[in-house]
């Protein structure tokens, strides 16, 4: 299951949004990976290092790929974070 999402938070996938993204990815059983929409490489969404290491900025598109029982719910939750202007405090 996969989905392409545009990153809305001003900071991109950095600082607090990244932190929330990783926390959320870890809260599901599904194995989630992400990468830039125009690249084939994927990294684990559950890794703060990998997620911040991607250096995805505001306005870029990312591809989310999930496998597992709750894959759809995981994608919904992660898409929500990526499309909210700033992660809720």
């Amino acid at each position: 299951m996969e989905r392409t999402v545009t990153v809305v938070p001003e900071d991109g996938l950095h600082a607090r949004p990244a932190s929330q993204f990783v926390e959320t990815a870890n809260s599901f059983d599904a194995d989630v990976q992400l990468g830039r929409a125009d690249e084939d490489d994927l990294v684990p969404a559950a890794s703060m290092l990998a997620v911040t290491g991607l250096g995805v900025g505001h306005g870029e598109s990312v591809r989310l790929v999930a496998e597992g029982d709750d894959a759809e719910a995981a994608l919904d939750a992660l898409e929500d974070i990526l499309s909210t202007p700033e992660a809720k405090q």
Partner: protein
Amino acid sequence: MTERTLSGIGVTPLSGVGTVVWYRPDADLPEPPAPEDVDGDAELARFEDARAAAEDELEAERERTAERVGEEEAAVFDAHVQFLNDPQITDGVTDAIEGGLPAEHAVQETFSEFVEQFENMGGRMGERADDLRDVRDRLVRVLSDGERVDLSSLPEGSVVVAERLTPSDTAQLDPERVAGFVTVTGGRTSHAAIFARSLALPAIVGVGEELQSVEDGTEVVVDGESGDLVVDPTDERKEAAAAAAEVDIRHESVETADGVDIEVAANIGTLADLGPAVDRGADGVGLFRTEFLFLDRESPPDEDEQYEAYVEALESFDGGRVVVRTLDIGGDKPVPYLDLPDEENPFLGERGIRRSLGPDADLFETQVRALLRAAASADGANLSVMLPLVSTVEELRAGRERFESVAADLDSEGVENELPEFGIMVETPAAAFMADRFAPHVDFFSIGTNDLAQYVMAAERGNERVSDLGDYRQPAVLRAIDATVSATEGEDCWVGMCGEMAGDPDLTELLVGLGLDELSMSAVTVPQVKAAVAETDTADARELAERVLQADTKAEVAEILTLDQ
């Protein structure tokens, strides 16, 4: 031994005397033993234990930082926990241990790889490299168990000296035991500097590499005002610094030697500043910069959130006045969710009351509702409200009418409210010139000296090339203050001052002499200013003010003030 002095940037106007404890979290580890001498299973278990212990520490420090400094500063610890538990890290460390390294070396090696990667990416990724270093050093400290300096249990009177101090480091410091800290790097707005101010710790940052020459166990005096670090100080120097450090904190209000009450209050931005303000003996709040409730977030605080903030400030002081300044947005204070215009001269553009009566009318109304409700709360009688950057009588009238019409709305909704004491900031030359016309319409003035000096002298704040001009000891600035106070003669209008000038204890006598009734400053200097008020005789102070007002130049002003000390 001869005394020598290194200089850096002083970040708190406090002095401390103590013994240097070097904190070197990234010192090299000893050579690892040969791989065949390493018990892999035991090392893995040590790593797991250290990881759990580090996570516990991080949770505790997160709590403490949220309480002491603020939620914003605390959030960094969430990221640290995630790095600590990152699968790439744990896999890397496990592999390295299985390859024959002891746990601390495995941690060092694994993290260092990622630190380098992030550093090479540059820009904002560099900040993440700092976080990773921070987590690495924490794990190595836990693993080396007592062989490294533990910031949370330093001997009393330690002066912590370090290359830099991270949020994790400062969160561990016990301000009761630490006499101050000094760092090689850092500026006035670095994390360590903000932390030092919020805890009233003497501190100097940005001393430079010369600091490396100061050895562990050396006696030093940390002068957080001048930025001087005095190494191997003479006895006289130590006594003077110790005397300066032992300013009594007076929780009761203070009067001059001849019995005139002077209110000494604190400036606050967020609710986290309330604790230090109370601890340092402030009588109340002389300036609540409410725009800080609006910064660093994605949407404005609603009416209830603001109401609660104002009530909390009121409840923090036993009968002390709390002066709330309405939104002062614009100028140098951008707010992400407001569409602020790109102005060529933001300090001369649409800011303060100009926005509240214009594009931010809705935000202003919400704030006014919250303030009117807070004025009807249990301690509401102590609430005062003032408008920022007023330059015309029309603005004052329009602002006041907003309060009255919103009060009428609340009445018709059946919501309890009261009109609070009402005043304006005097920070434009226009307000100082027109003070006699403003005075009959207000209960008080509060002179904002930072902006007043900037506008009177046409010298931008923070621009070092003109900092001599923008100095509040310039005769023109002193005359503007004098004109403002004099304009209230015969009116029922008290005059306060907020801004750096009010917190300078060397100027307290002059300010009393100029006729100010209230002084409001950063909490740190409240005890010094209270002490200075108690020593002041108002007749002498008036005579001093008269002489100072005759000065032609700032140098003459400074000379008169020095001779008077």
